[in-house]
């Protein structure tokens, strides 16, 4: 400021003031030139009057290119009114503080900026222009957008995303983590991650932290975790080290996928697979067993026909009665096969057949052709091996047919167990055996079969007796399954009283 009353003092002051102003100006120029922010001035018509080095860097325009030109050069075309608005505010004496907007660089690239605009006044106090400080916030905006994007990903993730420091203290906990573990973020952040580790895995957290500290990643590690309600869940976790700007590991970020349902499904699939395999094994065994039985029956039928052929080979013809007897045997085999197949359906490992079923069905068949004669039965329930059942049915068929043929009246059939021995008795009320009856030398083919079957297949003995009350009785004793000693796995015989 000039002083008109004391010229010497005024002169001295003027020099001092000038020096001071020069110093101040130099200082301001240095500040403006070294500023990281663009500092630009313009007049009230929007014509640029100064342009610092930072403005050159931010906008790409050199000072000499743009000073004297309108500020609208750096205003995006889609904001035609912004410059007028700013200048109007300035003319009115207002400042504009930290106004975030966009500007266009010389190369056409759009940048985000924060601007502060102040009026520039003449020494007389008249507003003659505006000084603008511009900060390029493009990177900051990008980082903010990136951060928001990542936050959205984390928040909307189906997987739990959790971070912890190197002491295992939880530092972040997304909504999926809340859902999977049952802990709210505010309940667990700041607490130890050990809260979600099952008690039987005490070393797991420290092992994971040790790997992270060594800079290692852990990829898809399947393990278990503990929910807040105490339920253990199956999880797959991936752990990555979290590093600071200097590259130092400061914690770990963990992605946790709840695979409980997947594991349950896998176990269920595994169980079903095993069931299917077991069923296949059972089916294969059942088919093999059925094949064996069918083949065995065919062999028996073939053998019986062949034996009849040999028996009558010199007579050239087989009596019709013998053919009918063969028919009986075939139907007998069909009954046994039917019962065996049924027992196989109930339990494929079942090798046994009920004595009452076999005898009941067989006698029913024999009564169909007995001409109205009754066949009494007294059969104790016991379980017979399938081979025993086939043989017993053939023997009963032969003995009852013989009794019906050689006697009148009723025929009695009994099958009882005495300890581990079964006794079959077929009795009639006919004339009985002659005194000199010798079953070996006088045996016809039927009796020969009975003798052979009882001895070879049933490992038993046969007795031919006359009853005191009249009539013949054929008695066969044979061991029940547990005493056969044929190497098969046989449980104790289930001998029951007659029903």
């Amino acid at each position, binding site marked *: 400021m000039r002083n008109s009353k004391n010229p010497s003092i005024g002169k001295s002051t003027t020099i001092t003031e000038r020096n001071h102003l020069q110093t101040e100006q130099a200082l301001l120029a240095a500040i403006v030139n070294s500023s990281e922010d663009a500092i630009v001035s313009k007049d009230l018509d929007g014509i640029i009057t100064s342009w610092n080095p930072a403005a050159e860097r931010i906008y790409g325009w050199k000072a000499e290119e743009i000073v004297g030109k309108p500020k609208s050069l750096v205003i995006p075309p889609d904001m035609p009114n912004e410059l007028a608005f700013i200048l109007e505010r300035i003319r009115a004496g207002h400042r504009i503080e930290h106004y975030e907007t966009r500007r266009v660089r010389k190369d056409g690239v759009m940048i985000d900026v924060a601007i502060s605009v102040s009026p520039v006044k003449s020494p007389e106090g008249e507003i003659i222009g505006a000084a603008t400080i511009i900060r390029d916030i493009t990177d900051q905006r990008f980082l903010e957008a990136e951060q928001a994007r990542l936050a959205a990903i984390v928040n909307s993730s189906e997987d739990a995303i959790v971070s912890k420091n190197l002491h295992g203290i939880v530092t972040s906990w997304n909504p999926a983590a809340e859902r999977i573990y049952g802990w709210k973020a505010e309940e667990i952040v700041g607490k130890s991650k050990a809260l979600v580790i099952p008690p039987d895995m005490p070393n797991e957290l420290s092992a994971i932290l040790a790997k992270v500290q060594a800079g290692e990643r852990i990829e898809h590690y399947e393990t278990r975790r503990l929910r807040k309600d105490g339920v253990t869940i199956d999880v797959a976790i991936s752990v990555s080290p979290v590093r600071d700007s200097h590259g130092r590991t400061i914690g770990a970020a963990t992605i946790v996928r709840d695979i409980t349902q997947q594991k349950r499904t896998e176990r269920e699939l595994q169980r079903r697979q095993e069931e299917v395999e077991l069923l296949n094994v059972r089916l294969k065994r059942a088919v093999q067993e059925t094949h064996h039985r069918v083949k065995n029956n065919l*062999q028996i039928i*073939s053998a*019986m026909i062949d034996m009849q052929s040999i028996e009558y080979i*010199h007579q050239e013809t087989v009596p019709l009665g013998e053919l009918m007897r063969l028919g009986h045997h075939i139907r007998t085999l069909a009954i046994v096969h039917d019962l065996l197949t049924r027992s196989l359906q109930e339990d494929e490992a079942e090798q046994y057949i009920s004595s009452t079923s076999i005898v009941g069905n067989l006698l029913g068949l024999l009564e169909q052709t007995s001409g109205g004669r009754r066949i009494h039965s007294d059969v104790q329930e016991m379980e017979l091996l399938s081979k025993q059942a086939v043989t017993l049915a053939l023997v009963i068929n032969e003995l009852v047919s013989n009794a019906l043929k050689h006697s009148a009246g009723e025929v009695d059939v009994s099958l009882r167990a005495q300890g581990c021995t079964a006794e079959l008795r077929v009795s009639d009320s006919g004339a009985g055996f002659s005194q000199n009856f010798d079953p070996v030398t006088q045996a016809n083919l039927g009796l020969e079969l009975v003798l*052979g079957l*009882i001895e*070879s*297949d049933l490992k038993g003995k046969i007795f031919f007796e006359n009853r005191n009350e009249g009539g013949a009785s054929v008695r066969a004793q044979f061991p029940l399954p547990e005493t056969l000693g044929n*190497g098969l796995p046989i449980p104790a015989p289930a001998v029951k009283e007659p029903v």
Partner: protein
Amino acid sequence: MIQPLPSTSPWLPLWTAPAQDPSRKVDPLDWRRLLHGSALLRDKRIVIVEDEGLTQIQLRKICLLAGMEVVGLATDGEQGVEQVLLTQPDMVLMDIKMPILDGLNAAERILQELSVCVVMLTAYDLDDYKAQAQAIGACGYVFKPVSASSLIPQLEAAYTVFQRKPA
């Protein structure tokens, strides 16, 4: 029929049935040819090892019809070995699936002790069984069901194979 083996088998000559006259007519159902038994098998001594009683009776009848002498009957492999070593027969008719000791093991034990014509009998047409039977030195392999008209020629063929075997 005796089952032919693959042509690469070194056992082929031993397992091939005797050559037949292709110009001769044969009625498979002509039972009359059975009336005179078998010239080749007549008086040959045989042990039958079969656990099915009815089949055992049938086999015995067929062998008797062929003119053979049945010198032993057994219902399991163990008994079969005992009978054969005791009676030293010309032939053994051995079922495979039997209790206590199966026919293949029984036949192997017999053939380690004795040079005899062993014919294996089975309800199962399994290559594995056939290969094992061949490996232990059996002379024939017969499938069930059998009949007199089919078994007697098969026993004859097996016995011919046995006769051709080097001592």
